[in-house]
């Protein structure tokens, strides 16, 4: 019986350490997904959370100011706009341009702008848009995609 206790103890220790590491890893890197309207509705006490917010880049809104990049993303369903200031180190992804679906990762500032430390962008037309779904910018000429 003694050896089973040993195995049990060892396994418990290993799993315990891993569980603790996992929990602290989650706490360190957790990021909330919010839509623009949800973000604007947050009480001020929760504004300091790290948030990922997604929206379509408003055409013509991308401005560069030194190393920072300013642009506006919009949530079509609720007609909400959010101005984002990107201050990250990496150049913006290739897929980031007008109308692209962009995800900004950062924190809300008291002045109502969103400071992003990372931007990911999904080019609207590539890797296939939703069949017949909205947000498709580059339709193949005059043709509608086959509805599924």
């Amino acid at each position, binding site marked *: 019986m003694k050896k089973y206790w040993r195995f049990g103890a060892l396994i418990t220790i290993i799993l315990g350490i891993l569980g603790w590491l996992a929990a*602290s890893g989650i706490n360190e890197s957790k990021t909330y*997904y919010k839509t623009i309207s949800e973000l604007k509705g947050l009480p001020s006490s929760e504004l300091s959370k790290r948030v990922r917010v997604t929206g379509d880049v408003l055409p013509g809104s991308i401005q560069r100011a030194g*190393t920072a990049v300013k642009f506006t993303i919009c949530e079509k369903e609720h007609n909400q706009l959010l101005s984002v200031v990107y201050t990250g180190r990496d*150049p913006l992804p290739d897929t980031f341009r007008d109308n692209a679906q962009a995800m900004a990762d950062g924190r809300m500032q008291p002045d109502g702008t969103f400071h992003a430390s990372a931007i990911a962008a999904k080019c609207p037309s590539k890797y296939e848009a939703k069949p017949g779904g909205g947000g498709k910018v580059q339709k193949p000429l005059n043709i509608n995609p086959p509805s599924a």
Partner: protein
Amino acid sequence: MEVLGALAILFAFCLSIYAFTGSIVGIVWKRPYLQKSAERAVIGVFTLVTIASGILVYFLTTSDFRLAYVAAHSNRAMPVMYKFASWWGGQEGSLLLWSWLLSVYSTVVVWTNRKRHTGMMPWVVAVLQLTQIFFLVLNAFVEPPFHVLAVGRGVQAMPDGQGLNPLLQYWMMAIHPPMLYLGYVGFIVPFAFAMGSLITKQKGDAWIHTTRRWSLITWGFQTTGVILGAGWAYAVLGWGGYWGWDPVENASLLPWITATAFLHSVMMQEKKGMMKVWNMVLVSTTYFLCIFGTFLTRSGFVSSVHAFAESSIGYWFLGFLAISVSATVILIFRRLDYLKSETKLESVLSRESSFLFNNLLLLASAFAVLWGTVFPRISEMVTGEKITVGAPFFNKVNVPIGLCLLLLTGVGPLIAWRRSSWESLKKAFRWPTIFMVATIAVLAVAGIYHFYALISFGLCVFVTVTIVMEFWKGASAIAARTKANLVMAAVELTHRNTRRYGGYLVHMGIILMFAGFTGAAFNKDTTQDIKVGDKLSIAHYELQIREITSGSNDNYTWQRASVAAFRDGAPVGMLFPERRVYVMSQQPTSIVAIRRRLNEDLYLNFAGMSETEAGHALLQVYVNPLVSCIWLGFWVVFFGTLTCLVPSKVKLAYARTEVVGVYEKKTTLAK
């Protein structure tokens, strides 16, 4: 012709239903002719899916843009290789590839086992065909590849297609999906045999012996696929890394982890008759994770930068998974009596226990990766808030697990079966430990204080020494007897027991890869906006942009920076990072320039001309030590896997306790 393709898929669907029902009815009512005809139907399915795939490929290579799929994933200016690769460039085509590979594997299984396992085979065929039916349903009704673009009343071709996603126009990416699929789909075969053996209440390990090679080959394909994906990310995506814990990457890694655990734990069953239930669980888990991975990448279940579109296809996958998981769980529970362990664990210090902990750690890692990947969805379901976890979570859990596994890689093969004493352990590990401590001391003196990196390098040396010692011991014994030189003796040694020494080679490759991963602790990078002609410096490199040139061809327009690199003041050559804008998709893409050396890579990404200051170029520079070790390590793993597949010259009789009547009596008495 597109009608023929669609018809071929439909017929294949009907035929695979026939093959499924035929084998089950055949075995339940004991009608051998039905079983035989079901097996022939499998070959029929293969022929039909091949025809459908052939037609799709024909359309792609001849640029027939009447087809929606061709128009969306190919264009005229693409090289033929990428036109062909468009087969798996989109949802519909890649699902067809899945079906096709499965039909190929099923045919090979039917052919190679035509005279073996007559009792089990109909069930194997049934399991394979059930999966085939599922994928053919997707091909025929949910994501049909032969949609014709109808404009008005007639069928009209578009002048040109949109082209394959530029990011995918890279040789590694062209072969990455088929490799990964070969690995994913291939694991269905061991699973099918496992289920066949459960259903027919087989006592022995016939399924393990039959599928040992399959598991190894498909594991090799999975490894190749995952590494190709990492290599592609490194060489194409331009962020200087090869692994970002993106859901899609995780999806490809998950079955690999459980497959690795399976490859290790089957040894326990083969040699000791232990862990039988566990192996069933592992082979099923791997199979489900393969399906789950396909589901993750295709359904938009978790958001990922490079996932396919959101679509209703996810419900089909969930349904299929729910049914097959519950069926498997019920089956395993009902057969628990046939899966009794023949021996028991005797000591914490034993080979058995090292396998046990190897499996525990691999599974913990798989669970952590799975948890982190689906965490946004789980948190949304539980708390209503979508929360995502990033790379820090994955690294925090997986780095210690990786290091423990590395340690086990060195300890496991040297520790005795059943039980080992501290004395023998001290003897076996004296030299590896001395080398490990020496390495850590030297590195610390050289100024490396990164805790994990020190441990990792130390362990790499530890394991390397154990492996070298193993080869040395065996080879010098042979050399002494045959008077051959040591190298020849080592080859002879490997040939005598290919699985053991091939396995050591695989371990060696993994160690090289770990060394490569550890290099990431010393990465340096900078992003600078510099004028043409100016210099920037990073680590011991200096870079000077000499000029920017531009041009265009049918497929894309390009802008290229000519960068002269100096290392410690001495010129080391020119690098040409490039930026392309593809004509059809208007998508800009970076073509990075990498100076690859074994000790470190110099990695340049030309991010375009500055928009604020004229004549300035935006340059991202990364210095990544040891990355090449990862790719080198892969080749060693590959070579080691091939070695394992070579039949051993000497058939070793396992020191295995066979099941005998007395033992069985005991267990019944114990009840």
